[in-house]
């Protein structure tokens, strides 16, 4: 099959399959489950097919490009295309979904039809976000993920679900409305450009991502700053970056297990993906008509955002430490972990951003698995309070093994996947001279230690120690006096693939990381070149100090960029001309 067709079918299978569930005969909800599993497995198979057809020698290109005109008068298109970053996130999504569906077989008893409908629709929306090459197509899918999760939390969540669903929706919706305005602004700015501006799509209404990268480069730094803030409004809430994280613990604790897994595993990554795909390439460089390329808003903002990320890492790690509810602890640990991811992104070098993308995938696997583990406990004991359980290693050895394994993956034990991302993001921040620097890495590194403390503290209380089985309100042990059941074959089938994934990506991440290099270099190129230029310029300033003291006074801001030293940037287009996806 043609890879483009595969991509379309991959998105349509969960969407149409989910809607098809509504037409299964009434009153027979058990039939819904195998159907839902079949659809997600088929989607996974299709995404593997896509990965096999993908040309791994040019991972930076948006391959299998295809578009369908949506509203030609606005230049709106349904544009598809994937590079390696998108592909890995697509694989993460399609890999997690069957496991989530399988994991929810017994958890959802009522209204199962709706549950799997929303789950499948959510999968389609997430896949759409990752393959979009048109910014409004991305935005549509990005926004539409809210609706299924709103219902998953609101209908199937625990006691405070209504508030959680509402807060989740409103918080993220508000942020992304500002992103909407920002995107419109960039697209409008593009139309004001001369049609002779040297990139495809200049001067007309277009929402093609690559066109808008170029267009944004022609903005002034002040304009870019507003655009960056607008993009951050949507994406920082989604990630979430401190202090916009307050919706997340609530949503996580109230959501059903499947919702938490998808939320932590994939949906949070929409935020970091958005930052990487839009904010970083768009605002990396500003082409000043007089003095040529100057560092864009991103370069000015990066230390501040990284600072917020570090505050988030430490602050939420401390919060984790005092949690009593296991699920809440893992929810906060997500915020802390995503802080590393953001730190890596705003190091704006290949190592840091590569580490961030690796972190996105790895966090999806390990935290998703932790939420599944907690869900299995909750199904048995109907509580998640650490104080009420202990020593589960003796009664549930298989579960305990998995739990410890994923905890270690999550804290970044070398050899498991979490380590790769964490190490690379810190290394990226450390070596990001002129943007971040060793201090950023050092302080964030403390977060790693905190992370190990709270996760192992939790694991120690729950898995080891004197055996304590939670009792219900009547004082009876759950399971009605019977021995607590360890994991069933189905549950092992859910966790084992995740464990294998963690192990493989931990032991041999090289192909994975190598495939990310090229697309990341392309996306960060404008910003990296400007940072390098600023560094050399500052060195030159220092040099000038020695010889010409008076001239130095003119350069006191240390920011003036000497253009001719940048062969790659002197001639427009300043941004590397990436392949047009609509070939």
């Amino acid at each position, binding site marked *: 099959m043609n890879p483009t067709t595969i991509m379309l079918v991959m998105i349509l299978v969960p969407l149409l399959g989910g809607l098809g569930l509504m037409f299964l005969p009434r009153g027979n909800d058990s039939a819904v489950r195998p159907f839902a599993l079949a659809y997600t497995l088929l989607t996974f198979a299709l995404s593997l097919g896509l990965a096999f057809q993908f040309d791994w020698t040019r991972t930076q290109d948006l391959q299998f490009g295809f578009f369908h005109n949506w509203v030609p008068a606005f230049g709106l298109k349904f544009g598809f295309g994937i590079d390696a970053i998108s592909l890995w996130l697509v694989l993460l999504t399609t890999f997690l979904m069957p496991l989530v569906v399988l994991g929810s077989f017994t958890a959802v008893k009522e209204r199962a039809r709706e549950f799997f409908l929303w789950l499948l629709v959510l999968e389609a929306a997430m896949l759409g976000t990752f393959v979009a090459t048109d910014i409004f197509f991305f935005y549509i899918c990005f926004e539409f993920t809210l609706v299924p999760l709103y219902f998953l939390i609101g*209908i199937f969540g625990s006691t405070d679900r209504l508030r959680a669903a509402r807060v989740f929706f*409103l918080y993220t919706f508000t942020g992304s*409305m500002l992103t909407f305005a920002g995107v*419109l602004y960039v697209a409008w700015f593009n139309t004001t450009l001369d049609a002779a501006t040297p990139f495809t799509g200049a001067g007309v209404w277009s929402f093609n991502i690559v066109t808008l990268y170029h267009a944004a480069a022609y903005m002034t730094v002040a304009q870019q700053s507003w655009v960056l803030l607008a993009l951050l409004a949507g994406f920082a809430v989604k990630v979430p970056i401190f202090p916009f994280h307050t919706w997340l613990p609530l949503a996580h604790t109230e959501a059903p297990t499947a919702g938490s897994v998808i939320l932590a595993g994939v949906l949070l990554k929409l935020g970091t993906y958005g930052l990487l795909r839009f904010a970083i390439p768009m605002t990396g460089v500003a082409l000043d008509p007089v003095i040529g390329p100057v560092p864009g808003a991103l370069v000015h903002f990066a230390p501040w955002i990284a600072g917020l990320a570090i505050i988030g890492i430490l602050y939420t790690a401390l919060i984790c430490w005092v949690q009593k509810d296991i699920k809440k602890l893992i929810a906060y640990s997500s915020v802390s972990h995503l802080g590393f991811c953001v730190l890596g992104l705003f190091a704006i070098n290949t190592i840091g951003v590569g580490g961030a993308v690796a972190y996105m995938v790895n966090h999806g696997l390990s935290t998703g698995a932790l939420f599944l583990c907690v869900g299995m406990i909750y199904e048995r004991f109907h509580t998640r309070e650490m104080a009420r359980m202990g020593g589960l290693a003796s009664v549930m050895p298989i579960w305990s093994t998995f739990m410890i394994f994923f905890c270690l993956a999550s804290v970044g034990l070398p050899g498991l996947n979490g380590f790769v991302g964490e190490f690379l993001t810190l290394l990226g921040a450390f070596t990001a001279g002129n943007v971040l620097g060793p201090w950023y890495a050092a302080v964030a590194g403390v977060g790693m230690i905190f992370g190990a403390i709270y996760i192992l503290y939790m694991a120690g209380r729950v898995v080891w120690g004197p055996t304590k089985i939670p009792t219900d309100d009547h004082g009876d042990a759950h399971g009605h006096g019977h021995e607590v059941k360890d994991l069933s074959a189905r549950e092992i089938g859910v966790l084992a693939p995740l464990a294998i994934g963690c192990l493989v990506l931990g032991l041999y991440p090289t192909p994975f990381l190598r495939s990310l290099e090229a697309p990341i270099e392309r996306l960060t190129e404008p910003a990296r070149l400007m940072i390098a230029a600023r560094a050399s310029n500052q060195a030159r300033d220092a040099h000038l100090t020695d010889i010409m003291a008076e001239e130095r006074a003119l350069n006191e801001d240390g920011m003036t960029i000497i253009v001719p030293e940048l062969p790659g940037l002197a001639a427009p287009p300043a941004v590397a001309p990436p392949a047009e996806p609509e070939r």
Partner: protein
Amino acid sequence: MNMAEKIAGVWPEIALLLGAALCLLVGLARSVAIRRFTGWIAAASLLVAGWIVAAQVCNAGGVIGLTPYIKLAVVAVGLILLMVAAAVPVQLKMTRDIEAGREPFEPGLVIRGEFFAFFLFSLTGVMLTADASDLVWLFLALELTSLPTYVMVATSRDRVEAQESGVKYFFLGAMAAAVFLYGFALIYGATGQTSFSLIVDAANQQIAAQGRISPLLTTGIVLSLLGVAFKIAAVPMHFYAADVYQGATTAVTAFLAFVPKTAGFVALIALLGLLPDGYVPPAITWLLWIMAALTMTVGNVLGLMQSNVKRVLAYSSIAHSGYMLVGLLALHGSGDALGNGTAAILFYLVAYGLATIGAFAVLGSLQARGEEAETFDDISGLVRTHPVLAGVMLLSVLSLLGLPPMIGFLGKIYLFGSAIQHGFVGLVVIAVLNSAVSAVYYLRIASACFFGDSEGHTVSTPGISRPLAAGIAAVAALILGFAGGRLVSTARDAGGFPTGRNDVVTTPSQPPAATTASR
């Protein structure tokens, strides 16, 4: 333009008027079987009017100008509204009693004839508003739109609240009419003309002579805008909306939410068209800016505090007027894709109309404790008893919220994109924040339907037409979201031409496109 040509343009209105007259006659028939035909006659006359408009559009080679677009929209949405309203006379106790033979036939108590006739009169008024090329015509057309609605509000429900709303609506409407009539008088005083094209000429002369238009003309336009703001329920003329929408029967509320609002926006576009091209006095820009910001903020904030879904939707309708006022600021746009405020408003009217009618129709299809469903409790747990209606409600509120991929999202791109194009970035930021606020109450509706406990409601209206209309409206809002390209380009073609003025200089031999291109 002579009278014969003008009449040639208003054949659709003539068809509707004839249909209305026939409705009045048939509605008085002694036999119930014949009286039941009134609804069908109304539908038939709408179809005939639609057919005539379609023929005119084909002759002209496309939807050229605002007039045919509005007429087509009125026919299409009018048919949906008719389906929603078809059961209104039967819902009245007196009509039911007489038709079941419990009471003797009394022509004054059977409202079938009047109701459908007034329905058609009001739609005729909107179409005539779109035709207007003269202040007097515009005034009469606006009043023809509004007067029947006062009666429809008062007579369509067995409750005293409906009459209270009718009276309130009538007096405030009359006051608004006085305000814009005063404005018209000042415009006439400033220019000595009532014809739009001649007023524009006079304004151009003023600009040539003094570099600005006279304060009298500005005042006239400002007063006219404020008066017409009543029709669209914009601040400061919004205060009637919630009470009237709540008091009227839900089918009529749906009518109020679309029909007078459409006429109002057409009139506003025409009034701003009186200004010379590219020249808007700062006073008017500021007036519209403040009105837009206040209207959407007031609508959304007050919408948060309601416990009655009809009132929520009333405030949502106010807020949407605010969004469309943003487009009004971008009115003097090029014929570009995004950037033409007229086209954006035309598109948004349809987007808003479909979604809001869908929501009201779902509400009207439900009955709780013998009354029409109104409160959040009444629709609580709807998904358990009527999953399809709950789904329709969800689609409607999502479209009103502007969530992609519904048509409301395209409408927002169009409006806000046009406003950004004209440099109103601050207003767009206010608008998107308002959209975020509106999510609170739209989600309340959705969560009542999907998360609440069922209270036991029944589909109240006899027949399937009202739920079916809700379904059609909501599905159209979804499909047009995905396949909106055609509607967008139609709206663009329609909005690319100034109102009222093009037909003055156009002779039948000359295609309108040529005239406007020369402008």
